């Protein structure tokens, strides 16, 4: 009994990959649908997501309003789809911004070491010393609310994580023989960083970026939920959930539908992110 349990433990711990390749179709399909609708939102004949029709407020889902209408009589389906556009813009651009800056910081720290490394690590430590939501709140509150500022604030927040990933990977690659070889033939630092090290950083950074997208989509949702993210008439999933909270007793679907859509999207992103991370770095998939 105990011997088989111990054997089971070993098998589970060393099992190389989870077998859910076939199950990946659903999350991938959902993500493709969300992306497709977000891109084509203007061309598929959706009603204006901000057009109010107070007489038609809080209509349950029907043939005319597939997902019903919200507290102000706005079409929910349209708002969900335009909200997807907001989430995707912030979710893709903010980590990208963070990765450009953080990646550069991490690479210089890992490559040059010494004082630059010390400064970079200190900088990262200080940004990490704030609970991230509190920092995001403070930034957007004082920058002013707009799509651009929310993206900027969340982009700044993703700098430390990006810097850590790129620093750790650079440290590992910078000691390799091919880097030494490049240096021996007289390649400049710039050339070594961009041509020898950077290409090796891209796979782990890409895997991390996928994870960051879902984290940032949730963070944008939280900011908008608190009324400090995307400004009011513009649809955002977090804002829709907050609006729906007012009418939870009479029209629960106004909150539950955007909640379900957000859940499905984050879940799918996590699925795909895990998968890619397993492929890029099998060691980290053990946990």
């Amino acid at each position, binding site marked *: *009994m*105990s011997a088989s*349990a*111990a054997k*089971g*433990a*070993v*098998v*589970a*711990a060393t*099992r190389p990959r989870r077998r859910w390749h076939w199950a990946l179709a659903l999350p991938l399909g959902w993500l493709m649908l969300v992306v497709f609708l977000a891109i084509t939102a203007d061309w598929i004949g959706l009603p204006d997501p901000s057009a109010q029709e107070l007489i038609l407020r809080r209509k349950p889902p029907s043939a005319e309003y597939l997902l019903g209408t919200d507290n102000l009589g706005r079409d929910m389906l349209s708002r969900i789809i335009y909200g997807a556009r907001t989430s995707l813009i912030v979710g893709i651009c903010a980590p990208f911004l963070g990765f450009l800056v953080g990646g550069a910081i991490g690479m210089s720290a890992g490559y040059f070491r010494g004082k630059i490394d010390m400064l970079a690590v*200190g900088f990262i*430590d*200080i940004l990490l*010393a*704030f*609970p*991230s*939501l*509190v920092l995001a*709140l*403070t*930034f957007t*509150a*004082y*920058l*002013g609310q707009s799509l651009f500022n929310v993206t900027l604030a969340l982009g700044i927040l993703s700098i430390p994580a990006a810097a850590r990933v790129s620093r750790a990977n650079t440290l590992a690659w910078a000691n390799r023989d091919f880097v030494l070889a490049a240096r021996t033939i007289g390649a400049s630092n710039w050339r070594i960083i961009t041509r020898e090290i950077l290409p090796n950083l891209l796979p782990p950074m890409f895997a991390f970026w996928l994870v960051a997208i*879902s984290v940032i989509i*949730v963070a944008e*949702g*939280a900011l908008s*939920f*608190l*009324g*400090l993210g995307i400004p009011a008439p513009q649809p955002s999933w*977090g804002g829709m*959930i*907050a609006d*729906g*909270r007012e009418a*939870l*007793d009479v029209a*629960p679907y106004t*909150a*539950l539908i955007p*909640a379900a859509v*957000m*859940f499905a999207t*984050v*879940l799918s992103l*996590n699925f795909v992110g895990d998968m890619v991370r397993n492929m890029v770095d099998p060691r980290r998939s*053990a*946990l």
Partner: protein
Amino acid sequence: MPWIVRQLVRLVVVLFCVTLLTYMIVNILPGDVAIVILGNLATPQDIAGLRADLGLDRPMLVRYFDWLGSALSGDLGRSYRNGEPVAQAIIDRLPVSLQLMVMAQVIALGIAIPVALLSVRKPGGIFDRISASAAFGFLAMPNFMLGIVLIYLFSVSFDLLPATGFTPMSEGLWDNFESMILPSLTLGLIEWTVLMRVLRSDLLTTLKEDFILLARVKGLSPWRVLLRHALRPSSFTLITILGLNIGGLIGGAVIVEQIFALPGVGRLLLGGIFNRDLILVQGTVAFIAVGFVVINFLVDMLYAVLDPRVRHVRFRS
């Protein structure tokens, strides 16, 4: 320098930078408090006068050191809005936030430890797979979403628990508990997933050790082996994660306090942000950041105390 002294020096430096950064964010970024207080109809003279009264016309670094000096003596200034001392406002609301976070951690650990123990009994078995899926699902739930769903389920549909509002402990322990259940569940139901995964993976590693084999050979029951022999050496990472997660917990507390209308520090901060109450925001953010840094420092220390191997390695490095 001994390890502990270096850590303390580092702590002080980080605290200094964190408060300076807080001060800079709040003061450099646009948004003039004087205009907010006086309204759009104020004359430039009025605004200049008020700015001088509030000391806003002095250089920022001078103001920072002034502020730091008083902050060290426990004076975080007074709210621009209603003149309430900021330090007192924080102290008044702190118990609510602390109660929320402690209850959330208790719930999270209360779920994570039994689930992890049950799932390592048969790794890859049915329970293990179900609990892994459940953890994956809960991990994808943003806390504001889970909060709304819980209100819908427990307050709107079944009317079991109050949806919002807070009852202080002085007005009855049970009423207080009742008003805190949903908020702490909202945080705890997400937090347990991370703890469970970490503990499960550490338990699996521990179970491969020789002393576990010895305990089994002695004929101890599987549960006794798990509880008495495997759990303790497997919980070090858990403690670190508990510390690291406090940042997320604080952010979560801000949202949850807002959803459930709890008068905690998070809601104080949000109110300050909405009212553009600079001094209040500055004091609250600095307080939260300092608290976070100090807690993480203490967790690091605790880790070293609990696990002699870590202490040894760190002392030498």
